[in-house]
């Protein structure tokens, strides 16, 4: 471990650290544009110049210089200051003076560093270079004249996103950053280049000219677009969510978020349910809360407990599911479920439905078997982690299921799920590879478990995990990749019954159920609920409201403090950034208020009492799960085909609709059409 002296401060840094990192360890601020911790080192902006002794008698780029023992680094000499001023002056030669109309203004590295390390004036009298704007798709707005060629976006696309479609064409003064032939970027992660861009060249297209960074209030929250639970910062102004940015969490999303997490938010203001509705003569009409509750009370009169059920959708929070379950219990029913796809999870064994290895744990694995899943669409962040592991730790990925481009090399075993039998009993040639692997993991998609023989597939996966020693020394390589934010929480609190939601739907269609509470389940065939009195509690006018007799408007994930458990089994809370729209209320309070009207008052008056009494820390035990039986041959049909249209918020979002259209390659419709 080299020990060096930075401005008189002695620091010891790990082997392989750069001088820049050593300076940071000593508490020195080093300006930089091209250097980024999570990308390869380019060393082309030259802003991080320092004096290094022993060495050539000139300043050197600290980001690309390995820290060595007994080095003496000077970061604050007159020479360094002058050198950085020179670099800054060159960077600004072709940079336009358009800060007042630039969206990066106020959060711009170039602006800040020009203030701190620049000369303050320019000596350049010639014309500045101008560069045409490049089309990069519906999410990224480009003003390429502002580009300083740090190539962070190019390196991100190549290294992290794994879609090598951004590059630098031309040379010298003619160099330009662009996507290949200005096609829309085809990655679920590429909007992160907006955050990476140190200047205003790449900015957010939907957020263009919407707000200034200092006008925004930031609320630390978590994302519910998928089951990853990415940590986000919700920026709001007044009562509107303006944008979503990633928040650092090394265990989950590092510092990236997927495009859907970032840009589905315009769906929070569209197609919202902002008032209670009651169906009268086949038509939904606006009503007051009291009226809606009275209608429900009336409908429940004389209905016995076994004629009532509750279903919850993919964005359901734990508090509300607990309240809903308690309410149904008070009404005499245990028929509650949150599995829209009938996936055969064993709610009794927590290890059977969570991502046991954890997302960060993927980096410990050396062999990964994907079964019936497309992580790129189901959990883009986890796919990015898989790619990172493939690149950095030599992870080998084997796919059993639909063929797709996962952005890293994958060995395709086949599409027929019955191959799993051969792996489980050791007769498949791949079994040898599993035997020799040091730390193999299996990632099971929910689509595989949603098949009729899902329980058998779960058992086969379990026996693979046992047979090939995936569970050992505090590491569990048996992973289920959930796709909805509510799923693990629902299973944790036993919000599940036999047959899942499809069984409830078929019973409702058969007239066996009189009253069904539908808490935001929209990815179902809601026509099945037409025979029952359906109470829809949700945020958006999507599929679920079609069969609703009463609609109770609730809060979206940015409008409430609620608990979600991600696919790893990690409980996290969203925070209230803005108020619910119109007359909508926080979800659990609706159930609590309704319980009062029904004379079954639930025993908690605030959310803390609800949480304390019900959300307890569960530990995954490696107990038995799955059911033995044969696996029929045939492919797994993935649940997600369109990444940008998976939930009510995304379906209400115009930005997501545009992304979906571009992804399909459909032509853009003009106004006249």
């Amino acid at each position, binding site marked *: 471990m080299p020990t060096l002296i930075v401005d008189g401060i002695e620091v010891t840094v790990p082997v392989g650290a750069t001088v820049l990192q050593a300076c940071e360890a000593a508490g020195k601020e080093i300006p930089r544009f091209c250097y980024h911790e999570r990308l390869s080192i380019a060393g082309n902006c030259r802003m991080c110049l320092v004096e290094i002794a022993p060495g050539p008698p000139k300043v050197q780029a600290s980001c690309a210089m390995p820290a060595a023992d007994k080095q003496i680094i000077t970061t604050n000499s007159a020479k360094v200051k002058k050198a950085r001023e020179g670099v800054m002056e060159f960077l600004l030669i072709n940079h336009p003076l358009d800060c007042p109309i630039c969206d990066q203004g106020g959060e711009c590295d170039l602006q800040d560093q020009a203030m701190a390390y620049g000369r303050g004036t320019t000596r350049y009298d010639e014309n500045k270079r101008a560069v045409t704007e490049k089309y990069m798709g519906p999410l990224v707005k480009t003003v390429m004249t502002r580009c300083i060629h740090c190539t962070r976006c190019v390196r991100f696309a190549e290294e992290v996103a794994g879609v090598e479609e951004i590059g630098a*064409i031309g040379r010298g003064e003619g160099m330009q950053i662009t996507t290949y*032939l200005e096609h829309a970027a085809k990655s679920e992660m590429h909007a992160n280049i907006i955050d990476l861009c140190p200047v205003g060249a790449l900015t957010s297209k939907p957020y263009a000219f919407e707000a200034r960074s200092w006008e925004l209030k930031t609320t630390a929250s978590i994302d519910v677009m998928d089951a990853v639970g990415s940590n986000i910062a919700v920026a709001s102004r007044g009562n509107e969510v303006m944008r979503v940015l990633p928040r650092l969490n090394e265990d989950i999303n590092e510092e990236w978020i997927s495009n859907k997490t970032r840009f589905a938010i315009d769906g929070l203001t569209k197609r919202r349910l902002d008032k209670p509705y009651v169906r009268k003569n086949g038509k939904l009409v606006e009503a007051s809360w009291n009226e809606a509750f009275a209608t429900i009370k009336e409908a429940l009169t004389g209905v016995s407990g076994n004629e009532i059920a509750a279903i919850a959708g993919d964005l359901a929070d734990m508090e509300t599911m607990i309240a809903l379950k308690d309410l149904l219990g008070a009404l005499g029913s245990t028929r509650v479920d949150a599995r829209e796809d009938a996936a055969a999870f064993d709610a009794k064994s927590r290890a059977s439905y969570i991502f046991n290895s954890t997302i960060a744990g993927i980096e410990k694995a050396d062999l990964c078997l994907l079964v019936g899943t497309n992580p790129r669409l189901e959990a883009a962040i986890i796919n990015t982690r898989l790619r990172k592991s493939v690149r950095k730790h030599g992870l080998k990925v084997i796919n059993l299921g639909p063929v797709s481009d996962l952005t890293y090399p994958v060995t395709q075993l086949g599409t027929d799920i019955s191959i799993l039998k051969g792996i489980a009993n050791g007769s498949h040639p791949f079994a040898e590879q599993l035997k020799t692997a040091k730390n193999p993991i299996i990632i099971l998609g929910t689509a595989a478990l949603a098949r009729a023989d899902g329980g058998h597939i779960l058992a086969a996966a379990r026996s693979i995990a046992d047979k090939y020693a995936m569970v050992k020394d505090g590491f569990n390589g048996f992973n289920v990749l959930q796709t909805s934010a509510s799923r693990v929480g629902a299973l944790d609190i036993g919000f599940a019954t036999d047959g899942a939601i499809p069984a409830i739907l078929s019973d409702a269609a058969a007239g066996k159920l009189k009253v069904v509470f539908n808490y935001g389940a929209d990815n179902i065939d809601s026509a099945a609920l037409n025979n029952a009195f359906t109470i829809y509690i949700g945020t958006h006018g999507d599929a679920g409201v079609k069969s609703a007799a009463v609609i109770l408007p609730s809060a979206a994930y940015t409008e409430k403090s609620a608990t979600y458990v991600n696919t790893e089994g990690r409980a996290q809370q969203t925070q209230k950034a803005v108020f619910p729209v119109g007359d909508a209320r926080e979800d659990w309070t609706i159930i609590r208020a309704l319980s009062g009207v029904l004379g079954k008052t639930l025993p908690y008056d605030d959310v803390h009492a609800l949480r304390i009494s019900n959300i307890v820390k569960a530990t995954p035990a490696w107990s038995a799960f799955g059911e033995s039986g044969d696996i029929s041959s045939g492919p797994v049909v993935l649940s997600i085909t369109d990444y940008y249209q998976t939930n009510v918020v995304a379906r209400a979002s115009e930005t997501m609709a545009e992304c979906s259209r571009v992804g399909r390659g459909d032509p853009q419709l003009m106004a006249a059409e």
Partner: protein
Amino acid sequence: MSDVNFIKVDPNFGRDFAWTPDNSKTVAVHIAKYPAGRHSAVMPLLDLAQRQVGEQTNTQGWLPVPVIEFVARQLDMPYMRVYEVASFYTMYNLQPVGKFHVQLCGTTPCMLRGSDDVMRACKDRGLAKGRTTLDGLFTLTEVECLGACANAPMVQINDDNFEDLTYDSMYAILKALTEGLPIKEGDQFQTVSGEEFRKLYHAVKTGPQIDRKTSCPVDGPTTLKEMVTANHDYREAL
């Protein structure tokens, strides 16, 4: 200029590109030169592709997007990475060029030695910077130093250098090429001027266009003069 234009390109041009039998042998040689999995063969392959397009179109060749993608697929490289290479190097043409690609050096040594006159000769022959003449014969490109400063001013036409130019000699070369005179290596005729060469062989001579051997001093040796005819021991003089 009225008689120059951009060549109109069929957007489908190059979609059916495939190596000729000869070239596919050359491709195999190029790929074998580099370690497996490396993409270093991209540069020779792009050059070969450009030359093949040139042979097919009777021009100096260029790289249409489908051809760039063809090379990328062959080397298992992302399209963007190959496009970056093709756009970085000026010897790859991303637009069609004529039968003769005149690359005129305008960098300091050539400019001081009269490249403006050479440029004027080009203009007077109907060439314009960045354009191709309507007859499809000439494309004029102004380039940076081509490394023949000792024989400035110079142009590169196709794969050959033409050096020690004047307005008249450049004009004459372009005129001769228009008239269909072939280009011949001037190596064996170094002390014959371009003008005499055309009269003698009815062809255009590469290299210096004046009576000059490579980049030797124009008026004969300036040093070691005694060494010109026989060996000479300068130590005697000491």
